[in-house]
């Protein structure tokens, strides 16, 4: 017994000292599917730095955002945080995270990244985040269903989207749709609904919020573009009856065959590969442009290992692995993605973006989540409101009322 106790005491001691001697580097992420990526980078990193113990923690985005907000002020956050530009903005403005080292700032400002990503990672002239990947939307469509309907390619204009949606809808004997031609996000929690609406709005050259010349923010949808976008939804649901909230839509419906096309980010490619690998589908660019949400890596303290780790994460081999295996799009533009696009042709619409394709993003302002969530609540009710069919005044009134709320939120947040 005594020997045993001694032994265990010694092993405890050894364990403790080894932990104390080795250095720890922690990384938090709000995308559980990113864990494999960080693990891969960590394996590479620890081959060169065997003393370093790397802790990776991923969790669902909302819980994650709550967690960093509470952890940062009490200095208990991880060394490296993966945060989207718009959410990071309020943390950077609150002085909770330091700018990058001069070296890294120079690197980020160099040729590796498009200005769009550099801007979104900067504040007041300093670069705070290293662009890692982006969430970007495109059209997913089912090739087989398109062929059956006699359509030989994706829709090119918004008018075609409307036609295609009708042609592709499958109906039962009583005329009720059993498969939506084009699945729209009609229900659901919070910002998702507003973000999808924003994407359609963007095709009509509108924006959910706009910055005026004096730097203040206002609702940008109480206009012709907003009316057209909303009319799209209202007509497809209530007049043309090509889609309704009960039909399974989105990635799930696409995989189950209850929708012929929908707009979503590139992660769907990975999701389809794992759930329904035989699905015949392709992707296409949206008519005018699409949403791109940059996600960056931020360092919370002066741990030199953190910067070193980020350099590893940016290695071309890991960036290529990221897009090929996780499905999120790496932001480095100085890497040749041709081999990946060749093996996964659906990535074409995500990685080869023409010059005139207009990207938009959720602006880095503190109240944007609340603006989107509140607007989304109104949208969900409006989409299924048959009174809005052929009722321009009704749509106008809806938009005006919603815009008033949006502006109120913006002004309360001191953005007006």
């Amino acid at each position: 017994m005594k020997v045993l106790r001694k032994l265990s005491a010694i092993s405890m001691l050894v364990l403790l000292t080894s932990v104390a001697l080795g250095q720890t580097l922690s990384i938090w992420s709000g995308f559980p599917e990113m864990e494999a990526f960080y693990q891969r980078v960590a394996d590479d990193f620890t081959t060169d730095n065997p003393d370093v113990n790397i802790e990776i923690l991923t969790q669902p985005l909302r819980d994650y955002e709550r967690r960093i907000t509470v952890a940062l002020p009490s200095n208990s956050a991880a060394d490296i945080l993966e945060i989207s530009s718009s959410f990071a903005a309020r943390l950077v403005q609150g002085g909770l995270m330091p700018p990058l080292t001069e070296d890294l700032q120079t690197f980020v400002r160099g040729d590796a990244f498009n200005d769009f990503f550099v801007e979104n990672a900067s504040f007041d002239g300093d670069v705070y985040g290293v662009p890692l990947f982006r969430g970007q939307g495109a059209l997913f469509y089912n090739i087989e269903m398109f062929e059956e309907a006699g359509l030989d390619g994706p829709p090119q204009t918004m008018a075609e989207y409307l036609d295609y949606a009708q042609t592709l809808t499958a109906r039962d004997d009583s005329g009720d749709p059993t498969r939506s031609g084009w699945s729209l996000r009609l229900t659901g929690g919070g910002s998702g609904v507003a973000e999808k609406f924003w994407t359609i709005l963007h095709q009509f050259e509108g924006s959910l919020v706009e910055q005026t010349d004096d730097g203040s923010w206002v609702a940008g949808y109480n206009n012709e573009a907003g009316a057209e976008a909303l009319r799209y939804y209202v007509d497809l649901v209530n007049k043309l009856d090509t889609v309704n909230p009960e039909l399974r839509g989105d990635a799930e419906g696409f995989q189950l065959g209850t929708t012929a096309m929908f707009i979503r980010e590139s992660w769907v490619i990975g999701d389809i590969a794992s759930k329904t690998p035989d699905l015949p589908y392709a992707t296409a660019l949206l008519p005018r442009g699409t949403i791109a949400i940059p996600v960056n890596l931020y360092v919370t303290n002066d741990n030199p290992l953190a910067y070193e780790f980020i350099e590893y994460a940016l290695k071309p081999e890991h960036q290529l692995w990221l897009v090929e295996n996780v499905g999120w799009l790496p932001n480095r533009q100085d890497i040749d993605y041709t081999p990946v696009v060749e093996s996964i042709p659906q990535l074409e619409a995500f990685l080869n973006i023409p010059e005139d394709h207009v990207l938009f993003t959720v602006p880095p302002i503190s109240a944007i989540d609340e603006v989107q969530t509140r607007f989304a609540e109104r949208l969900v009710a409006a989409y299924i409101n048959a009174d809005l069919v052929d009722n321009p005044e009704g749509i106008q009134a809806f938009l005006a009322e919603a815009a008033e709320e949006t502006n109120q939120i913006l002004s309360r947040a001191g953005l007006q």
Partner: protein
Amino acid sequence: MKSMLSTTKTTPQLNIKTRHGLVGDISSTIILMVGAILMMMPFLWMLSTALKTPGEILVWPPKLIPENPTLQNFVTVFATAPFGRWLLNSLLLAVVSTLAILATSAIAGYVIAKFTFPGRMALFLVILATAIVPFEVYMIPLYLSASRLGLINTLPGLMMPFLIMSFGIFFIRQNAIASIPDELIEAGRIDGASEFWIFTRVVVPLLTGPLSALGIFAFMQAWNQFVWPLLAVNSKSLYTAEVGLALFQTGYTINFGAVSAGSVISVMPILIVFFVLRRQIIYGIALSGLKG
């Protein structure tokens, strides 16, 4: 099985037949039976869906009895989520919370019932008044306190709000007043026993009934917690069964089978406990419900 309340009351049962007795009896039996079946339906569907293949789940109309029952969904669940760990966390939370509530309620309830000291009434009124404040009202400051103490995302942080129960103190106080004669305590004191000895050897044994009722109530309350564990814990390894399951389903919209299998797994332990301790549980809840 005996009727669960037969122990609580020994008055003779109503046994007078009227002319309409038989008709009435048949119709009440039908009502009770149909009702009972409807009440159990969600459980049966949960089990049925858990045993179905993905293809069969989407068949319309749905069938209660799976044609090709499979355990594949359970395999999927255990392969993708640490359900065992989550159940263990729930159990830890429930056990620690129950023990803490029993200890604090027993001592505080007894002292408030049997000791006269300045501030006794004020203390009792404060406890009574806060008993009705819903947890949701003060969870935000509690979260911030826990965060300041570094308890967010730790087991102690998870347990923190459930160490005490206003109703428990009140409940034990009422029972101590009703069932512990002052003479017994005095006798102990005259024999030279310490206050602590009297409490553990005289008072607690006399309160076994109410304490076990309270224990069952506290255990179930802790097991069913959702809002706090959802807020206070962020890493998968610290989820309780409830939170784990709720977040598990968000990733599996396409897989109702796996979600149902997860539900079956998380509901099983408490149902087993229920069937073993059926009478005590119902008695305990009946007692606690009659606090007013």
